[in-house]
C-alpha cells in the first residue's frame, strides 16, 4: 500500500464523511477548545463524566480529514471508558503517531487506533491527528481554555 493510501484509509475517509458524535453536549461536565494555527483546524470536545466514567463524548468544529476522523474515532473509542483509561489511550495514541516509522510498534487494543500509524510518514500531519486527543486530555484536566498544538 502506498504512503498516501496508508494515510487516507477507508475508515479515516468514512469518519471524515460521516463523523460520529458530531454535536454539542448541553451542560457538559468537561469541555475544551483546540486550535491548530498551522492549518486553521478548530475543534471543541464535550464530555459528560459520571462516577469517573465517560458517559457521553462529542465534538464539533472544522478541520482536515485527518483531524476530523481522528476526533470522530476518538469519541467512539472513549465512550464508556474511565477517565484514567482515556488518559492511558491518549498516551498510546501519541506513541502510534509519533514513533519511528522504521520500527514496529507494539500497542495492544484498541487496534482501531492503529489506522493512524500512516500519519508517521507525514510529519506535517501529526498535529492534525493529535489535536482532538490533546483537546480531550485538556478537557479531562479541567483546562477549558483554548489549547494550541503549535
Amino acid at each position, binding site marked *: 500500500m*502506498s*504512503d*498516501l493510501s496508508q*494515510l*487516507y484509509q477507508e475508515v479515516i*475517509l468514512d469518519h*471524515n464523511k460521516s463523523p460520529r458524535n458530531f454535536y454539542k453536549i448541553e451542560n457538559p461536565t468537561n469541555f475544551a477548545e483546540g486550535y491548530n*494555527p*498551522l*492549518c*486553521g*483546524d*478548530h475543534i471543541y470536545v464535550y464530555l459528560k463524566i459520571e462516577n469517573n466514567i465517560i458517559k457521553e463524548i462529542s465534538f464539533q468544529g*472544522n*478541520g*482536515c*480529514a*485527518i483531524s*476530523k476522523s481522528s476526533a470522530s474515532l476518538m469519541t467512539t473509542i472513549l465512550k464508556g471508558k474511565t477517565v484514567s483509561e482515556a488518559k492511558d489511550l491518549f498516551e498510546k495514541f501519541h506513541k502510534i503517531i509519533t514513533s519511528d516509522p522504521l520500527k514496529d510498534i507494539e500497542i495492544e487494543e484498541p487496534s482501531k487506533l492503529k489506522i493512524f500509524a500512516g500519519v508517521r510518514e*507525514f510529519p*506535517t*500531519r501529526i498535529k*492534525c491527528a493529535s489535536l482532538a486527543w490533546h483537546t480531550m486530555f485538556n478537557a479531562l484536566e479541567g483546562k477549558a481554555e483554548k489549547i494550541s498544538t503549535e
Partner: protein
Amino acid sequence: MKLETTNIDKSLLKEKNKIYHNIDKIREDFPILKQKVRGKTLVYLDNAATTQKPKIVIDAISNYYLTLNSNIHRGVHFLSEKATFEYEKARTKVKEFINALSASEIVFTRGATESINLAAFSYGLTYLKDGDEIIISTLEHHANIVPWQEVCRRTGAKLKVIPISNNGEILLEKYYELLNNKVKIVAVTQVSNALGVKTPIDEIIKKAKEIGAITLVDGSQAIPHLKIDVQSLGCDFYVFSGHKVYGPTGIGVLYGKADLLEKMPPYQTGGDMIRSVTFEKTIYNDIPMKFEAGTPNIEGAIALQKAIEYVKNLNIEEISEYEDALLRYCEEKLSDIPDLIIYGRTPCKAAVVSFDIKDIHPHDIGTILDSEGVAIRAGHHCTQPLMQRLGVSATARASFSFYNTFEEIDILYQALLKTIKLMK
C-alpha cells in the same frame, strides 16, 4: 498521456515571448527542478512562499566562501577590500533594480519582515503619538500587521484597516473615508501574497501623500512579477525579501527616502553602524550603514545581486507577460473542476491562484498533490484576518514563476481530479 493545451496560452503570448520559446533552457538554470520527489517529477508551485534559485545564485554563494570570504568595511587587506566592493556593488544593483535615487537609500536587512519592523520601530515609535492613526489593508501579511499593532500599543496610535470586496479588491472609496489629518502612516501591500490580487498602489500612495502621511509598500510579492520604480511610485519606504526574487534567504531590503532615513534613530546598535565610540558618547554612521549593525549577510547580498542580474536578463516585462498567461490558463483549467472555488478572481492579479474545493480541506489537497510531486501551499498564508474576511479557515494556493510550464498546470489539474476521486 499528452494533454492538449487550450488556446488561451498562446493567444496571450506574443510570438516573440522569449521565455515561452526558451523555457527548456531556462529550466536548465534551476538544478532543483530536475529532481524527483516521491517518485514523481517535481512540479514546484509554491513560488509565493519562496522561489527556487538559478545556478548563478548558488555559485555566487559558494564562490564567495571559496575565494572572497572576509569581513567587510575597514579591512585593509585584499580580500576585505574585494568583499566590501562586491557588497556595495550589490547595494548599487538593488538601487538600480527598483530605481532608487541613491544607493544610500538601500538598507540590507534579513528580509521584508525585518525591513517593516525597522521602519515601524525606528520611525513609528519616534514620530507617532497618542491619537495618531496608521492605515493598513485587509490583504496584509501578518508581517505588515503585527509591527504596526505593536507601534499602536506603545504609542497610543490607532490601527485602521481598508476593507476589501468579496473578490479581494481594495475598496478605494472606503480608503478615502479613512483619510484624515490624524493618519501618519499608510502601509499597504502591492500584491496580496494569499490571493495574488494587485492593489491600486499608485492611488493609495497619492492620496496618502495629499494628507502628509508616510507610506510603506510591502513589495514582497510584487518584486518577482512586476517592474518596480520607487521614484515613480513616490512611496517613502519599500520592502522586499531576496528569496522571493530568486535570491537566498536571510537577505532583504528596506528602501527609504534619504531624508527620512537621516532623521530616524538606529534600529539596532553595535559595530559597523557607528562612526566613533567613547564611553561618554557615540556618533552614528551615515545612512545606510546606520541601520546595518554587526556583520551583515555578505554572501546573501552578493548572491541577491546575481539574482537581480538573472531577472533583468530575462526582462521583467516578458516575465509578467508569460506568468500572466500561466495564470489565465490555470484559472480557466481549474474553473472546470466542480465545487472548486477560486478566491480573489480579479483581472488585476499576479500569478497566484488561491482556491478550495467543497468538503475537502486544503491540507488534504496539499498532501495528496504532494504525493503527485506537486508542491503547493495550504493554510492561512500568514493572513488570518483575510481568511476570516473571506469566511474560510484556509485555502490551497498555487503560485507561479517564469520557470513553470503549461504542462505543469495540466499535472496540477489531473492531481486535483485525483484528490476529488479519493476524498469524495
